[in-house]
């Protein structure tokens, strides 16, 4: 039962926990509500509720393209961040619905202004980012003599990223395996040739070898398996003469699938090593 000796302690607790109001006299014991004659009303009393304050429209904290100028065939990366009460974010030029914060690589074939539209309870906000696209300069005329080195443009122009995309192909693995199987060896051999050329043309660049897995294993184990696939591919490339210090490996486990269907065709596409520019 209610212990009188506990009253000072309860008063102290009340003071400490909720209000600083003094409690230096003994409070009356609380009384129960009167016994019910009729069933008690449902909760949620009759005090009027003030209307919620109007929500503010979403804020486009960032919407930018980097770089803002590219050569035709190159890519730019859109980055955006929308804050506030937001129910949908879309970007035009066929990009469509995106999450509130993210980035997307785009390959416009002509100068393009992208418009981001963020909609929320408080209204709609837009932002724009423009990518200027210009024609690549043509290759210099051939010098035609012996003993001259092959002009760089003749091996294929473009950025490091574009060269990788065009000439270094993904390789695929069997389920729960990281060994480079037969057909993948052929592809990796071609990749080694392409990589040596690209890395020679871009002396400071690093290649990322990404290891990926299909959706079925656990995320934890797939992080490990993806790493083994990447290191397995790297070993193969290094044996063929690609400089090891120009290659880094990273595993994305099953976090970055190419496709999401639950069938072997998609699963095989995801059990892969992919090449991308390193930092």
């Amino acid at each position, binding site marked *: *039962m*209610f212990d009188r000796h*506990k009253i000072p302690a*309860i008063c102290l*607790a*009340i003071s400490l*926990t*909720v*209000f600083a*109001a003094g*409690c230096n006299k003994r*409070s009356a014991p*609380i*009384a*129960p*509500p*009167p*016994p*019910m004659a009729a069933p*008690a009303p*449902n*909760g*949620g*009393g009759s005090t009027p509720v003030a209307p919620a304050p109007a929500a503010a429209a979403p804020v486009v904290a960032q919407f930018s393209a980097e770089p803002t100028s590219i050569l035709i065939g190159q890519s730019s990366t859109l980055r955006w*961040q929308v804050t506030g009460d937001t129910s949908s974010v879309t970007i035009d030029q066929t990009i469509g619905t995106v*999450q*509130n*914060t*993210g980035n997307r690589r785009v390959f416009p074939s002509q100068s393009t202004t992208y418009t981001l539209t963020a909609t929320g309870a408080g209204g709609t906000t837009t932002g724009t980012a423009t990518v200027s696209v210009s024609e690549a300069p043509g290759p210099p005329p051939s010098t035609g003599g012996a003993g001259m080195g092959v002009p760089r443009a003749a091996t294929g122009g473009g950025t490091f990223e574009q060269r990788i995309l065009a000439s270094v192909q993904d390789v695929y693995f069997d*389920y*729960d395996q990281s060994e480079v199987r037969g057909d993948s060896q052929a592809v990796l051999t071609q990749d080694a040739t392409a990589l040596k050329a690209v890395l020679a043309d871009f002396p400071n660049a690093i290649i990322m070898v990404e290891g990926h897995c299909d*959706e*079925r*294993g*656990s*995320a*934890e*184990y797939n*992080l*490990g*398996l993806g*790493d*083994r696939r*990447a*290191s397995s591919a*790297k070993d193969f490339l290094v044996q063929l003469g690609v400089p090891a210090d120009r290659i*880094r*490996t*990273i*595993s*994305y*486990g099953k*976090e*970055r699938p190419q496709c*999401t269907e639950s069938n072997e065709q998609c699963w095989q596409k995801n059990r892969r090593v992919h090449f991308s520019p390193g*930092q």
Partner: protein
Amino acid sequence: MKKLVWLASMAAIAGSGLFIVASQDQPDFVGLIVNSQRPKMAIADFRASGGGETLMSTFNQTLWSDVESAGLFQMVSKSLYPARIPQQPADFQQPPPPATGRPKRGQPPPPTTGNGLWIADWSGPPVSATYLTLGFAAVQNGVFVVRGFVFDMRRGTPSEAQVIGKNYLGSVDEPGARKTAHEFACDIIAQFGGTCIAGSHIYYTHQPSKLGSKEIWMMDADGSNPRQITRFNNVPGSTFVSVSPDGGKIAFTSYAKGQPAIFVFSVDPVRDLRFYNQAASVNATPSFTPDGKQIVYASSAPDDRCCRIFIANLDGMGFRPISAPGFIDVEPKVNPKTGTQIAFVSGRSGHPQVYTMNIDGGNVERISDGTGEATNPAWNPNGRTLAFAWTRGYATGKYNVFEMDVVTRKYLQLTHDEGRNENPVWAPDGVHLAFMSTRGGTEQIYTMLADGTQPQKITSQGYNSNPAWGK
């Protein structure tokens, strides 16, 4: 009183070790009393005066849910309760003495029921309660005060029957109503030999949309109060969180700095405590030793070929390898009772299986039997039962939650093919589990009891996975 002693001692056995049900061939070792043998608990609705009325719906629902989910009682439905609900011991009335002699003409017959004010109204049918919880609330000096009582209905008089009578204080708002309900429920559960999980927290991975940033969040054990902890805002993001034994720190894996690496954060306040990652393509799946002073983790060090199990100080220094090189070894979990044994996942014999080894790397033993794939091991606080995800009996990638006694190798299947069921983790009471399931279409977090009953969905927005249960 004798029955209470029996109950408490059985619950103590259940809490401290394994509780083998009578039938020999039934692998039921989960530390729960079979439902039909549990005592019956009735919980009357509490009402309030003085301004607390609007909070009582939350209070009553929270109190009921907490007591029910402890797995200690058969809950008696409120639809069976009598019309009048006593609010305090003084409300109980004694039935009048039986009439003697002939009833006088014109006198009404003696009442046969107190309509709720007699103990017999609750201990007899249809309620047939063993225990009754009742009380009331009021707002006094700006404080929400709850007076809670529990009665043992097998005693004759209210004063003999009272088992708990206590005050609970909270703020005059929904969190205050929940807090007082959690505290009262914890006292009831403790009174009957259980360990309370109300007030404990679940940490987890939250993703607002597929391919969005994964961040670490936390919530109460019933799914309320979700709040974000990490804000790296990168993709793929942060995941695989584990909690320190004292509940004050989390360790997780994040791509925030490029390569998957380990971070150790304090939780209150949220602060990066700076973990030294070995130079390696991957450092991942960290967890704490039971003394909270060391971290075990998986790393592809030194040659970027994942992964060996390492142990290090809380700041990452003083690292040394534990498992042998050459295999994919991930997800180390130290036995919380002994501190000298590690469960982990390894592909050394083919597909991933669950293994144990000593903390010095010796005595490697495979625990799962080699069929299918076994992953996500989690130790029960009893240090003897491992929960894990296993594809046993199903297609590749179709996991169910199993638990196994690592000594006898007896096991129990807790989920049954409703989607993928992975990442089981134990609550501090050793009786509840949280896990991820796709049974509703997307990855969400559920809780259930150690015998697989009472599954409850506790997340709903976005994609939620990889729970860890801490204080």
